[in-house]
């Protein structure tokens, strides 16, 4: 299943690279061989670099006529066997929800990068954090990764492909204007040190293959189109054979399995990072670029004798409930730090139960929090 990354795709070495470019290099290192996108700022550098890089590695690049074309081209390419990715920004991400719904129902591995921007402008924001999870119609679970640096844009893009392939599902990389348009040091490892996951393909001939009968872990093998398996890939509720069915039992069973692929593998998917959590009384919870000033503020608070800590969420969806609960049980107060009106704070409150107070530290003016602003919030609760 696991193969090594192809050497000529991987720009091993030290770079000083734009965040959007790091996404491209992460995708290529993960084996991406199909990209489709529609122009939108601040995601354009991803498309532009893909247009140059994809033909170099034998992949295909499509500039779609709109976001719908892009997302559906991904699903078509994915079914044909490609590792496919698109990149967009908040307003464009709206349009893709329809295709994401299809990718969920048809169980297609693909990666979507959303470089979040403010409504109508390209200012910094994290306001899509709910759109990531809830915007497509129907019931589903979503895997969403939140990088906070150029290095993490590279690494999380690789992870996103691996999750997509492992669980036969769309995965979202939640980028932001802040990191996408920033240049930073990036170290790209040797291909042999990059873990690559490829989808499971059937190991039986077509006449013995039941296309949506899952292995015990819930993920059916996926053959490429045109190999003689002759499968119907419908959005509509379908039985183990792929036949469209109006049987309520079929509908229920199908979505239990599709949702279960993620909920049952929660521990494999969820990732957080803790800083100074051992004895902390004031715990900040942040994701994406906001975790950077949050960590700076925590370090400053420590220097000033305040027992502050940071829980940085790498996986935003599914919610790291156990990890949030654990810090809630220990801390006296949680600060939920976000660059929006305070959206994910509701999830933190839910996961915390009644263990401790959750204070919302929000900023919704197109700018990232400064360290001083977050420090002031820590000081306020630590009084």
């Amino acid at each position, binding site marked *: 299943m696991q193969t090594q990354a192809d050497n000529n795709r991987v720009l091993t070495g030290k770079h000083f690279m734009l965040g959007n470019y790091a996404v491209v290099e992460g995708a290529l290192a993960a084996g991406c061989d199909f990209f489709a996108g529609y122009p939108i700022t601040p995601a354009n550098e991803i498309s532009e670099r893909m247009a140059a890089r994809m033909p*170099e590695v034998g992949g295909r690049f*499509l500039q779609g006529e709109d976001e*719908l074309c892009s997302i559906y*081209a991904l699903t078509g390419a994915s079914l*044909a066997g490609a590792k496919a990715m698109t990149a967009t920004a908040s307003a464009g991400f709206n349009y893709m929800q329809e295709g994401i719904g299809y990718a969920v129902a048809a169980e297609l591995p693909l990666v979507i990068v959303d470089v979040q921007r403010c409504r109508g402008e390209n200012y910094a924001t994290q306001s899509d954090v709910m759109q990531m999870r809830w915007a497509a119609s129907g019931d589903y679970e979503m895997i969403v990764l939140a990088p906070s640096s150029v290095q993490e844009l590279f690494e999380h893009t690789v992870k996103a492909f691996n999750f997509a392939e492992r669980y036969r599902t769309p995965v979202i990389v939640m980028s932001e204007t802040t990191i996408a348009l920033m240049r930073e040091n990036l170290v790209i490892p040797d291909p042999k040190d990059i873990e690559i996951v490829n989808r499971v393909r059937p190991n039986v001939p077509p006449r013995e293959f039941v296309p949506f009968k899952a292995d015990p872990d819930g993920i059916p093998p996926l053959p490429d189109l045109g190999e003689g398996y002759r499968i119907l890939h419908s959005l509509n509720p379908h039985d183990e054979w792929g036949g469209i069915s109006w049987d309520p039992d079929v509908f229920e069973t199908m979505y239990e399995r599709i949702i279960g692929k993620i909920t049952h593998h929660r521990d494999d998917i969820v990732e957080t990072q803790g800083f100074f959590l051992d004895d902390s009384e004031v715990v900040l919870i942040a994701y994406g670029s906001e975790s950077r000033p949050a960590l700076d503020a925590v370090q400053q608070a420590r220097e000033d004798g305040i027992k502050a800590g940071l829980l940085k969420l790498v996986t935003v969806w599914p919610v790291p409930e156990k990890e949030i609960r654990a810090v809630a049980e220990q801390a006296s107060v949680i600060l939920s730090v976000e660059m929006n009106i305070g959206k994910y704070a509701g999830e933190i409150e839910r996961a915390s139960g009644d263990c401790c107070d959750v204070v919302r530290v929000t900023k919704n003016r197109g700018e990232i929090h400064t360290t001083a602003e977050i420090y002031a919030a820590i000081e306020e609760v630590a009084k």
Partner: protein
Amino acid sequence: MKGNPLRRYLREGSLPHFFCPGCGAAQVMNFFLKAADEIELDFDRLVAIGGVGCTARIPVYLHADALHGVHGRTLPWATGMKLHNPGLEVVIFAGDGDAAAIGGNHFIQAARRNLDVTMIVVNNLNFAMTGGQVAPTTPERLRTMTTPYGNVEPRFDLCELARTAGATFVSRWSTCRSRQGTNALKRALQHKGFALVEFVAQCPTNFGRRALRTGDPTKCVQWIEERSVTLKEAKNLSDEELKDRFVLGDFVDYQRPVFEGSSILTTGGEK
């Protein structure tokens, strides 16, 4: 039906189909199977694509790889898979809603790019599956569920649109012209590039009963036939005389490079 030699191309367990008695889309499925059989189309390499609508159900019944269930996105699906694997034989079954309304821009762009697929449009002149609403293809003055006082919008000519956009094979027939239509499908399936075959088709249940005031399939078919002229006949008619007619025939058949992606390594571009 048991002895029908075309039955082997249908997916086991998918019947009975859901088409109404006298449905034109079901006839077009039959034309396709005849054409596919005669040219010995490899069903292992076939990917049949349907969006949403009555016509979009055709791929559900074919024993082939198939995609189904999202309205208007047939061509984006096809674009992704054809770029990744040009060896696939991709055939799209679209109603006029899929092709001319919600998927209209995809249709124009795929024709412009000369994407190497066959697109079969069953034009039953209305949104049939949803109960008979007006479509961009509904002739003027006719009554539908959403034009109770008569349609005031001019209709789309899909073949003219495809030709202008750059499609390299364009043909229109009606369900009355099974032989010509099946032949057109054979040529479309063998054509390299964007091939469109449009069938003007009867929908007795929703178009017939409302627009034509008859649910009788034969009368609906007669109504289409009475308004049909061949391309040759059309040359002697004025635009005004052609306004409510269906022009049948082969509009375009030529070759040009097919779409392989928006960025291709070449020896050098324009300086």
